């Protein structure tokens, strides 16, 4: 099964790589190592049958556990074989290759590394997003579920095309409101959830995960709009801007706009173009959608400030500043008991109460009927 060609060092190839490439961290990143060292022995050397696997917490279950027959010997053989293949791929990488080509080879070289697989499976929040192999696995996971879910909600709730005409999602956008103490509202929000006003009364934490390699400090714009603000004069709705961040520098690993950044005065001054104002639906008004759009700024910094006009045209804004929509998120709100309190917090006027008004039916006086 194991070819003999990798047994000797690959010294004739451009650069020297040891054949024990997965245990050599002189040229590879340390973040490809197992994050939790307590599993290292069980994974790479084999489970001691007297103690059981470390991953099982309860002692009785640990002792009752039996590994499949001969798994450790077979694993060793498989590990050596894959490691040899990986060394061959590493030998192909040199400075002449383009960035995309190098990333592709790095993914190929590390995708079967059991330590990488263990990290992505068991500690997905702690992995190093600068490594292309981790981003590849994150992207696979996103595409298999979360991307479809968020697109389904955006289409069902008509965020597309009520706000922007369409979306070809390139990034994973996650939103949470960490000021909440209730677990239900403090976790990442599933797109389309109906949230109470108290749960959204502080600005959200937004994670924007890029999967391709992006330049350090690429600029992004985030807009939160409400397309369901009642417009009584015209008997329809208008779009209001609730929150705007512009020129936000992000990268593959530094990808969160959270409380720490927002509390920083410099960041707030430079990047918050419109202060956060939560949706405060009025009584008996329809469910309102809070549509969060993420844009890549394809032509550098945005200089123009956002006007205070009543009806915000998000399409026009995106076009005039050449913004490319790459991700979106949505949650919904309706009137509840906490709305008035949130209105007070933000110094907003008291809300209206809508109620049914019967139509003034035209009463046709007798005798004027034009029925022949």
């Amino acid at each position, binding site marked *: *099964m194991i070819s003999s060609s990798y047994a000797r060092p690959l010294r004739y190839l451009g650069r020297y790589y040891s054949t024990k490439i997965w245990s050599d961290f002189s040229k590879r990143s340390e973040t490809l190592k197992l994050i939790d060292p307590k*599993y290292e022995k*069980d*994974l790479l050397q084999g*489970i001691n049958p007297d103690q059981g*696997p*470390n*991953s*099982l917490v309860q002692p009785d279950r640990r002792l009752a*556990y039996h*590994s*499949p027959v001969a*798994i*450790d010997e*077979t*694993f060793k*053989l*498989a*590990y050596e*074989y*894959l490691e040899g*293949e990986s060394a061959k791929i590493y030998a192909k990488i040199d400075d002449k290759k383009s960035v995309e080509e190098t990333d592709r080879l790095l993914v190929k070289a590390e995708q*079967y590394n*059991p330590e990488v*697989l*263990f990290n992505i*499976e*068991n500690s997905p929040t702690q992995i190093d997003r600068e490594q292309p192999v981790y981003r590849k696995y994150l992207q696979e996971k996103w595409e298999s579920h979360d991307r479809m879910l968020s697109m389904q909600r955006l289409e069902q709730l008509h965020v597309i095309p009520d706000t922007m005409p369409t979306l070809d999602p390139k990034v994973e956008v996650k939103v949470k409101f960490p000021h909440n103490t209730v677990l239900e509202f403090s976790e990442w929000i599933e797109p389309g959830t109906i949230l109470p006003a108290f749960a959204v009364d502080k600005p959200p934490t937004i994670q924007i995960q890029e999967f391709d390699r992006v330049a350090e400090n690429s600029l992004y714009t985030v807009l939160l709009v409400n397309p369901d603000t009642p417009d009584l004069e015209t008997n329809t709705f208008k779009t209001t801007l609730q929150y705007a961040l512009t020129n936000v520098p992000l990268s593959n690993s530094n990808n969160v706009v959270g409380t720490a950044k927002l509390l920083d005065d410099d960041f707030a001054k430079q990047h918050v173009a419109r202060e956060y104002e939560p949706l405060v639906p009025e009584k008996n008004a329809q469910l309102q959608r809070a549509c969060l759009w993420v844009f890549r700024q394809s032509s550098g910094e945005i200089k123009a400030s956002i006007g205070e006009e009543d009806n915000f045209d998000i399409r026009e804004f995106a076009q005039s500043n050449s913004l490319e929509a790459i991700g979106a998120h949505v949650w919904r709100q309706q009137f509840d008991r906490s709305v008035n309190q949130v209105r007070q917090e933000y110094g907003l006027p008291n809300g209206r109460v809508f109620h049914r008004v019967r139509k003034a039916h035209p009463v046709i006086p007798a005798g004027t009927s034009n029925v022949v």
Partner: protein
Amino acid sequence: MRINSVNASTQRVVNQLSALSASKKQPKLLNLCKEDLIKHKTITNAWNVYQRKVNEKRHIQLNAQYKSIHEAMEDLKQTSPQLYALANKPEKKKKFPLDMRMPTDYPPTKPWVYNYEPSQKRK
């Protein structure tokens, strides 16, 4: 209530039906721990990579064979058109000899016939 008195032939049919049902043959789902799961994945990955390599190698070899057959026939076409016509005649109804066997896990007790003679063609 269980019916005890069934005749033998009915009982046989009942047994046959229970032998066919899948529920008794379904193996239990293996609950592997996290480490063993990754080990299993790695073993599967290695096997798949190895199989891919073997298939690639076979494919390359067959392509090389095809190329050399093609070149030989081109050559023959140039040098001797008569021989080429003979060589390129399709062999209709050609069969592989029956004496050519597939390898099996349980070969016969007498694996090799030493005084073998091929079967005579009928005239």
